[in-house]
Each structure stands twice: as C-alpha cells, then as structure tokens.
C-alpha cells in the first residue's frame, strides 16, 4: 500500500468502445449459455416424450383377422342346455382350428398347419368360448368373427418386421408371410382397439398381456400408503409446528425428517425386507407391505409440506381464537387445520404421485413377481405399474417394447393428472394474507 495520498480522479474508468463491446460480448455469451442450458433440458424432455409416444401408441391397437367361424352345436352343447358350465368346457380349440383350416384348404401337412395356427393368438379359443357363453344364440350359426392375431403378425402389420431381412433371421417366415399377404389382399386384416391391454393382467404372450393387474396393484398399494401417511404426516406436522417445545429432542426430529427425505428410496426397500418381511413375516409381494414402505418413504415429504402449510396460517388467526378463550387444541382444530388443509392435501397428492412412480423399494419386497391374476386384496401377491414397466422393458419380444411404452404412457397420464389436481387445488384455495 502506498503511503502518499493518491488523486483518485486521475484514474478514470476505461469506457472505450472496444472494451465495452468486449464486455457486452461476454454478457451475450453468458446469456446464451443459460438459454442453451434450458434448451438442452427441454429438448431432453421433448425427446423422452417423443420416444415414449412414438414407440407406445401402436400398443393401443391390435391386429385382428376376420374368420368365418361355425359354432357347431354338436361340438359345443350337444344337449342344447345353454348352460355356461357346459359351454365353457367345450372344445373351442377344435372349432377355431377348423375355421382357420377352412380358409386355407390347400395347407395340409401337420407342420404347415401348426404354423398356420400360429398366425393367430393362442387366446382365440377363449375368445370364441366367451362369445358362445355370453350369447348362446350364436351356437349353431356361422358368424364372421374378428379373431386376435398373434404377436408376430401384429408386429408385421405395424411395420416392425422388415421383410427384406433373410428368412432365417426373421420372426415371420416366408410361408406365413404369404398367408398373411393373402388375408391382407382379401381385406380380412384389420387393426382394432386393444381392449386386452386394459382388461388383462400380465402374460408371457405379448398379445394377451395387459396392465389392469398392475393398475389394481398400484391402486391398492397407494390406498394403503394414503391411509397410513396422511393422518400420521399431518399429526406429526401439527405437533412439530404447534405444540412441540423448542428443545434438543424436537431439533433431532427436525434434522431427522429432513435427512430422511433425502435417503435413497432403495434403502426403504431394504428396511421393508428386513423388518416387515423377515421380522414380522408379512406376506411377500403384497400391496400391504408395499404401501407401508412407500408410506415411510413419503412421510417426510408430507410432514414438510404440511408444516409449511401450517406455517402459512398467520399468527393473527391463532391469537384471535385464543383471545376468545379457545384452548390451544381447539384453535388448531377449528382454525389452523381447516386453513392449512388445502396446502396439506396438495403436498399429499404430490407425495402420492412420487409414490406411484416409485419402483426400487418395491423390487426389494418382491413385488416383481410375474403375476397373471388381478389382485383382490391388499394381501394378495401383486405388482404395480412402474414395476410392470420394468418387467416388460426386460422382455426380449419386440411386441413388449410397444407395451412397455404404452404402460409408461398410462403411468405418465396418471402422474400428470395427479399433479394437475394438486396445481388446481393450490390455485383454488390459494390465499394471500
């Protein structure tokens, strides 16, 4: 540091145009970095959505083939009982195969025939059986029926199988291709809405697999979570915000809640496995355990959201209630809670949305099993929607790729709907004090 007094007016800012424009160039560059960063983030979101939608939309339709089926009374219900029990025992496989053979009379060898049947889904027996059982008047008639095609043919019509690939590397061989083309020329092939996708549970055969089982599983799991986490979370928030003395113990709880909110979700899965499955021996793969684990996982989020909702209620309201002689508990129950409720509900919906999308902890407690039944209670083995996505993503068949994407789409629709509900709720009840 110099000792002499400096005339500070001798040194002037360098405001030369070159320097200023250099500084502005830096300014523009910096701004551009920001814009690029946002563009990258939004591009990634768009790419993700485009990939999912473009791969998934085709799963909502399913290839069907129009076949003339003769519902032979002799085969189905020779005694004319119309008894569903009798009808469901009948040999519909024979009827279906007969109908198929009639369309291709020139196919005679056993091998070729077996190949011919594989154009159709193995489910067509049930399809015909259900038709006859639900409406016995079709028995004895000949009907035009849209029969579900097999997954490979479905992929062919959707353009996912390349005809130029050598036959040995193709899932549909030349012969089947020829049969299919003939059907196509006669306009007997059509893509119709894929109801199976929304009415069936998982299956090894792509064309028979649906998401209803996983949806019901998700619903049951979230129901358990909600029933546990909402009352507990709100009570904890009320206690910490309104009643808790400010001491070491509440400090510990506070720090603990904040840390728990940042614990990796898979650790909650380990907790569920060690405590609920191995120690308490609750049923494996059940929504009950899944719901408990997700409840513990979302609890901190909901406590934090509820606390800030309570904090947003101005002290003047409490003072007013205490001033007319209400007890502290009455003040909270009559004034604070009703005013904080929309905020708490918003937080809870957002927490539930997070729980709906959660996969990892549920893998730990065995909700990854292959389950073909739709669960009926919270102790039945089941899976959930994101786990179904995970399972299908692993399946090698091309037809499962579109189903994975479609299941993802359904999952995203639910998440968007929940978040939208939260936003609307917040908008509707938002209050400025």
């Amino acid at each position: 540091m110099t000792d002499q007094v400096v005339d500070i007016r001798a040194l002037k800012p360098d405001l030369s145009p070159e320097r200023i424009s250099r500084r502005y160039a830096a300014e523009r560059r910096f701004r551009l970095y920001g814009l690029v960063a946002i563009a990258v983030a939004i591009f990634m979101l768009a790419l993700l959505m485009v990939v999912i939608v473009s791969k998934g939309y085709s799963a909502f339709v399913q290839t069907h083939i129009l076949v003339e089926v003769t519902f032979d009374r002799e085969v189905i219900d020779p005694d004319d009982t119309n008894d569903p029990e009798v009808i469901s025992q009948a040999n519909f496989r024979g009827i279906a195969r007969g109908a198929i053979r009639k369309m291709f009379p020139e196919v005679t060898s056993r091998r070729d025939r077996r190949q011919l049947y594989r154009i159709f889904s193995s489910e067509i027996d049930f399809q015909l059986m259900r038709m006859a059982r639900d409406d016995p008047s079709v028995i004895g008639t000949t009907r035009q029926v849209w029969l579900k095609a097999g997954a490979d043919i479905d992929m062919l019509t959707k353009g996912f199988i390349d005809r130029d690939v050598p036959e040995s590397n193709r899932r549909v061989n030349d012969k089947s291709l020829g049969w299919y083309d003939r059907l196509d020329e006669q306009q007997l092939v059509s893509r119709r809405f894929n109801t199976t996708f929304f009415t069936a549970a998982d299956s090894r055969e792509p064309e028979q697999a649906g998401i209803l089982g996983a949806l019901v599983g998700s619903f049951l799991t979230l129901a358990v979570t909600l029933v546990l986490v909402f009352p507990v979370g709100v009570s904890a928030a009320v206690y910490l915000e309104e009643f808790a003395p400010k001491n070491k113990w509440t400090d510990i709880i506070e720090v603990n809640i904040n840390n728990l909110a940042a614990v990796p979700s898979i650790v909650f899965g380990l907790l569920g496995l060690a405590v609920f499955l191995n120690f308490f021996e609750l049923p494996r793969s059940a929504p009950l355990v899944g719901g408990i684990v997700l409840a513990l996982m979302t609890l901190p989020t909901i406590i934090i959201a509820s606390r800030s909702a309570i904090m947003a209620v101005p002290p003047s309201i409490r003072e007013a209630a205490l001033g007319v002689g209400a007890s502290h508990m009455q003040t909270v129950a009559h004034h604070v809670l009703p005013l904080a409720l929309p905020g708490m509900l918003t937080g809870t919906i957002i927490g539930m949305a997070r729980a709906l999308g959660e996969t990892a902890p549920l893998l730990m407690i065995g909700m990854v099993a292959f389950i073909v039944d739709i669960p009926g209670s919270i102790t039945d083995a089941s899976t959930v929607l994101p786990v179904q996505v995970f399972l299908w993503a692993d399946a090698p068949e091309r037809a499962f790729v579109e189903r994975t994407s479609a299941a993802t789409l359904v999952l995203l629709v639910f998440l968007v709907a929940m978040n939208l509900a939260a936003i609307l709720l917040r908008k509707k009840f938002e209050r400025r004090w």
Partner: protein
Amino acid sequence: MNTVILLIAILGLTAYGYQIGRRRALGTVNGERRRLHSLPEYHGAYVALWCLVPVVIIVFAWLIFETTIINGILVTSLPTEQQALPKSQLELLLNEIANIAAGTRQGADIDPYKIAAARQYSNLSLVSTGLQVVLVLIAGGVGLALAKRQISARFRSRHSVERMIRIMLVICSTIAILTTIGIVLSLMFEAMRFFAKVSALEFLFGLHWSPQTALRADQVGSTGAFGAVPIFTGTLLITMISMLVAVPVGLMSAIYMAEYATPKVRGIVKPLLEILAGVPTVVYGFFAALTVGPFIRDFGDSVGLSVASESALAAGLVMGIMIIPFVSSLSDDIINAVPQSLRDGAYAVGATRSETVKQVVIPAALPGIVGSILLAVSRAIGETMIVVMAAGLSANLTANPLEAVTTVTVQIVTLLVGDQEFDSAKTLAAFALGLVLFVVTLILNVIALTVVRKYREKYD
C-alpha cells in the same frame, strides 16, 4: 369380509361410547349444559377414545403376529420331513396350504397331509378370528365402562381428551425417528452377519467382486469374491458423468431463470422442468436402455470406438438429465435468496448483468449452491432404476466411460431379487452395500443440509 365386519363393529362400539358419554354428561346435570366443566361432546369423545384405543392396539397386534403364530402352530403339525424343509420352500408349502384352505387350489392330486393341514389352517384361522372379535369386544367394553364411570359435572374431560390427542400427535411425530432407527438397526444387524462371514477389510478394499460364485456352499466367503472396490468406482464413475451433465446445465438454467428470464418465460419453463423432475425413474431407465444406450453404441461404432451396449456413459447421461431439474430448482431458490441490494450495489458501479452474476451473486450464493450439488450427488449415488436398467452387472474396475460398470444399487437389486436364501453371504452382502450407501448418502445429506441452512439464515 371379516375385516369389514370387524371395522363396522369397532366403529359402532366407538359411536356407542360417544353417545353414552355425551348422554351421561348431560344426565348428571339434568341437561343444564352450563354446569358441566367441559362440553358434553368432549365427554362423549373421552369415552369413545377409551373404547377405541385398546381395540386398535389389539387389532394391530393381530395384524402383526397372527400369521407368524398360525404358521408356527401349523408347522409343528406337519410331517417331520416337511418341517425340515429350508425356509423358502416351507414358505411355498404354507402358501399352498392357505390356497387349499381358501379353495382356490382344487383337485384330486393334492397330498393328504396337505389337506389335513389345510383343514387345521381353516380351524386355526377361525379360532383366531373368533378370539380377536371376543378380545376386541371385551377391551372396548371395559374401556367404555371405566371411562363412563369417571364422568361427572366437574370432570375435565376436555383436558383429558386433549392430552390423549396430544400423546397421539407425539407418537406420530416419532414415527420418522423410528423409521431412521429401523433403517440403521436392520442394515447394521444384517451387515454384521455378513461381516461375520467376510471380513470388513476385504469387503471395503478388495478388488474382485463376483458374489454369484458364492452360491456354492464350498465357496462361501472364498477369497476375492466380495471385494467391493469395483462397485464403488463404478458408482463414482456414473455419478461423475451425471454431475458433468447436471451441474452445468442445471446451474446455468437456474441462473438464467433467476436473473434473466421474464416472468412469462419463467411461467413456461419452470413447470416444464418440474415435469422432467416428476418423470418416474423407471421411465428414465427405459429411455436409457431403449434409446440412449443403443445410440451411443452405434455412434461409437461409426467412429470406430468399441462401446459396451450397457455403457457407464449412457446410464450417467440419462441420470444427469434426471438430476438437471433437481439442481436447477434448488439453485434457483438459493440464487433468489441473494438479496437484491447486492445486485443493486454491483449495477450501481456499472457492472453488466453477467458480471454481477459471476462476481457478486454466485460468490454470495456459493455455499448454498455447493450444498445443493452435494444433495444432487447423494441423489445420484442412491438412484437405482436407471442404473439397473441401463448399466451393466459386471464389476469392472475401470475409469473408461464406454465400458460397462456396475453400481452399489444395481448390486443390491441383483443380489436380492429372485430366489434367495436369506442367510447366504450373497444376500447379506446386499445389506452391507446398503449400509455403505446409507452412510455415504447420510454424510452428504447432513453436510449439504447444514450448509444450506446456515446459508439461508445468513440472508433471512
């Protein structure tokens, strides 16, 4: 169905208790409400609570212990050879017996001992349910009667009810603590059992990881099978790649949003970033495995690089995308907490916006930003689905992002999903890894949250 009936019975009993309490309170003062210390509704609530609480305790006890006890009795009555079955097979057998009892599994091919067991299972269930109902009724009735006797004009039922509610609130607020204790104890307990089979030093510093070989009994704990270093380095590699994506992009978008964006742009971009944050991780995993992984592999092929189809790069990139909104929203909050007066001070000496940001706002916000990046790191380390679906299983000790590596979370999932014997070193290793994961993320979180809290206090 039983549960529904039980629920209705409990609710009915509680409602009855409420009415009794209320009536009795009014009765003691001949309907003159003013003579009561507390409102009659509080007397009702008092009786109802005394009825409800013991009942709920019994129901929960049943929920937790019923299966264990019934199965325990059932096993003792099975033929000795079945009793000696390993635990997992025994569980399957018990399941089957339950199914037979429920009538969902029918047929002539069922072993007679199973049918006998199923019959016994049904009986036990019936006894258990009956016992539960009787106990519930007794407990509810006793509680009700005891509470009812206390009611008088001077009885301060409001105080008692409020005290009970308060106790319930306290219990609810300790559940979070109990969860933490549960996590720590369960991880510690299982990890200790693992370290009894494999030395902790070898686990933490060994360079070779191949837990599958330990499936054979003669190889349990064989040297080199449980060295977790390749897993830690793999986790670190993927975390680093994801941070290289998430930190610049997240931070720059936060800066743009906080300092440059008009309210309109903010109103559009913020929800979009929130959508990115709300996408389930399994969807990111699918995206990584289906699109990004193959893209990187094909791109590598076209420039002559050999890239594994499950490369660390693909998983890291997608994880980075997932974490962008996390970094940006935390940093956005932090940057907004920097007081406007500091910006004004910089503008007033003629700084441009970017000079203000770079030299005043960011240095002022630095502790908070570092805290949020630490939180993001902890999140990346603990993220599971993306790596399970897009990173590999092979524990390579490599720093090359084009090779396949594995992570702590991937190993936990692979070790625990599927058929398992719970006592093998293989499954216990998952808990040891879980303990490491928990401790590391906990340390990161504690540091980050403390830093962020201190930062906020500074500008409040």
